């Protein structure tokens, strides 16, 4: 088991290295003096010279890369051209909001997917199954930003139950903040439950075919016990991998939800900084999201043995 953990940890290192290289070079691709690019119009001669010194622009490229990595590891990702705030602070603030929405929504979607997927696989080819598959297919086809708009229209504008624009941070009022988050979380839950349900249903169907399920029934266990204790752990493993992928993918895709509901999250930060040519922020966001994605998938890999002990053996 220990070797499994170590091996997984070691495998992330080359990926992280590649990621760092890619982010570093992406900004260097923009034509012009990198210091000028990083400071924008706000730079005066003194700060330009200081930044050049800091980035080591007179040194060979590999040294520049190492300097940049060293800064990043210390938490120094530069300063935003537009707001002069430290990039790392900006990212961390925005990330908290995004994280809440994503984690709550994906957790809820997973619970729905497990129950619906298991039920549909158990009663395959019955009206229940058809309904679940049909609903999942429909949900998969609906773009999340459109669903968000519709929900906003219905619950925000027409019915007036929930606020439409803006956001109140938790530090000011937890209840109000939560109200602002209901619709975005609901939208995301619905959207993601489609693909998760399909995956759960398909792997549950595969597992239900296997002999140990018949064996469990032959022992006289109730259908509920068979489904929860025998089918679920084995069928859940592929869905868990998918959850990891979705969490990573949403770090970017959340931008559209944040746009619809005007939430100051990480996705919106990324879009705004790209549109505003705020390169330090762009670079910081890319690096941060990629590292989070690698970390999330590492956690998923480490949880995998809980559901399929066989992976530790190979």
């Amino acid at each position, binding site marked *: 088991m220990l070797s499994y953990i170590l091996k997984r940890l070691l495998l992330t290192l080359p990926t992280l290295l590649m990621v760092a290289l890619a982010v570093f070079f992406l900004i260097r691709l923009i034509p012009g003096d990198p210091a000028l690019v990083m400071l924008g119009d706000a730079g005066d001669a003194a700060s330009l010279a200081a930044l050049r010194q800091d980035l080591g622009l007179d040194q060979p490229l590999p040294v520049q890369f190492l300097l940049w990595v060293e800064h990043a590891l210390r938490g120094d990702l530069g300063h935003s051209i537009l707001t002069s705030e430290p990039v790392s602070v900006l990212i961390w603030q925005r990330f908290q909001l995004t994280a809440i929405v994503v984690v709550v929504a994906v957790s809820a979607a997973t619970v729905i997917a497990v129950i619906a997927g298991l039920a549909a696989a158990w009663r*395959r080819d019955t009206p229940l199954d058809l309904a679940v598959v049909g609903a999942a297919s429909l949900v998969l086809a609906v773009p999340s930003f459109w669903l968000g708009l519709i929900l906003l229209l219905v619950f925000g504008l027409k019915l007036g139950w929930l606020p439409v624009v803006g956001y109140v941070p938790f530090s000011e009022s937890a209840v109000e903040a939560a109200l602002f988050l209901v619709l975005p979380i609901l939208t995301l839950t619905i959207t993601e439950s489609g693909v998760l349900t399909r995956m759960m249903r398909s792997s549950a169907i595969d597992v239900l075919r296997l002999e*140990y399920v018949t*064996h469990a029934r*032959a*022992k006289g266990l109730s259908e509920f016990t068979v489904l929860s204790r025998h089918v679920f752990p084995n069928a859940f493993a592929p869905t868990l991998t998918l959850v990891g992928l979705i969490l990573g993918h949403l770090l970017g895709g959340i931008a559209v939800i944040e746009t619809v509901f005007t939430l100051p999250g990480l996705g919106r930060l990324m879009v705004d900084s790209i549109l505003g040519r705020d390169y330090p922020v762009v670079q910081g966001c890319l690096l941060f999201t990629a590292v989070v994605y690698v970390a999330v998938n590492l956690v998923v890999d480490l949880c995998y043995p809980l559901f399929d*002990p*066989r992976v530790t*053996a190979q």
Partner: protein
Amino acid sequence: MTAATPLLRLSNLRIEANVHPRARPRPPLLEGLSLDLAEGQVLAIVGESGSGKTMAARAVLDLLAPGVRRTGGSIQLSGRELTALSPDQMRAVRGGDIGMVFQEPMVSLNPAIPIGKQLAEGLRLHRKLPEAEIRRQCLEMLRRVQIADPEKCLAAYPHEFSGGMRQRIMLASVMLLKPRLLIADEPTTALDTLSQREVLELMVELARDYRVAVLLITHDLGLVAKYAEKVVVLEKGKLVEAGDTRQVLTAPEHPYTQRLVGSLPRRSDGRHALAPDAPVLLSVKGCCIDYAGKPGLLWAGPPKRVVHGVDVAVRAGEILAVVGASGSGKSTLGRAMLGLKPIAEGAVTFDGVDIARMRPEQMRAFRRDAQLVFQDPFSSLDPRWRVGQIIAAALRNVPGLDARQRHERVERILEEVGLGGFADRHPHQMSGGQRQRVAIARAVVSQPRLVIADEPVSALDMTIQLQVLDLFQALQAQYGFACVFITHDLAVVEQIADTVLVLSQGRVVEIGTVEAVFAAPQHAYTQALLAATPTLAAVALAG
């Protein structure tokens, strides 16, 4: 309950597949099955694939697959009608009164749950016992089925055990509940010969000790002869013969039973004699083969040696059988003989030339002269190609043939294997036996001098096995190729081979002519193998 009430009575059991009401009506999967099983008795249901035997077993416990259901007949356990029970009552019968052991040890235990929990599950459900007592009983039963270190086993996962051990754990799990009837659905088909014997002997022993009746489902007549008192024979869903085992096997009345009994491999008289001065065609000296090591943290681990110093020679026209259990290295050795697996030490020479040092044109000639028949008829033929193309591919590298001649040769070989006119079919449109004949045709069409056959009939039904074996022998007699026949079944060896080589864990344990080795086996492993092969017992019984 009088002494005459049998423990299990099936009457006119009928099972059909669910079909759409507007679709064509299909014949029932099983009909008219009736049998009586007394307490403590062992009854075998015998049949080939499609006979309905597995379905009969599952119907008893009402565990039929979703697309299939029982449409008629009655199932009585000690006079109690099982088909009339409510689902809850049926669940109490499952495990508690009737236990079931399944075929595939690799998937019969849940890989995600430790063994201890799986064992305890049934006990907790059917008997109200304190936890300590449950644990004690589990440990005791594990000891009884000869699992070393039962304590460690309880906490371990199924993937840490071999197939044979998993079947024993399954037996333990079922016997813990002390059922009155044990249904064993092909419990040893997936195991090798020695494990098969161990598991079955254990099962019969346990059944005797706990006075449990056994309903044994199998396709292997040898097992039936050895372990069952009564037998029921099924063909395509119908009962064709039933009675005492000895009676049915020695004097079968129904033509199908006669065919079944007749397809047990046996030595035929009038086999060709091997010319004593035939030249050596393929020679293996000191052959050692390694498997790549398990991938470790940063680099691969040390390689594992799977074949140790094998010496053997195959002469022109000779049929050499290579026998061993799964994992003995026999398939690997066969691949190495064709240069498909690299050799770590030693040499393989064909016609005097070391195949590792062959020049390209020598290698091309070797590929024409030496061919391979694979074991699995489903995966050895490209599903996208037609049969004619598949066989013609073997002629691609034969010089001096134009397209018309190739076409003729393909047609001719198809006729010879009894598949005339099949050239345009796809593999998935054919049965397992037919596909295997295509594989043989492909191997033989280039008229090779050596054919290596890797368990070519192991995946086939018994009656089909006989047909394919006969075909193979006929082709060998006609074309005179030398053959290395890899198998785990000693009965097949006796029928077909001149010489036999016994492999155990990658080492040659015994080698000699078939007559000599079978009459007087020298090594303990060979002796155990001979004793464990059930088909030979059946032949002894029948002949």
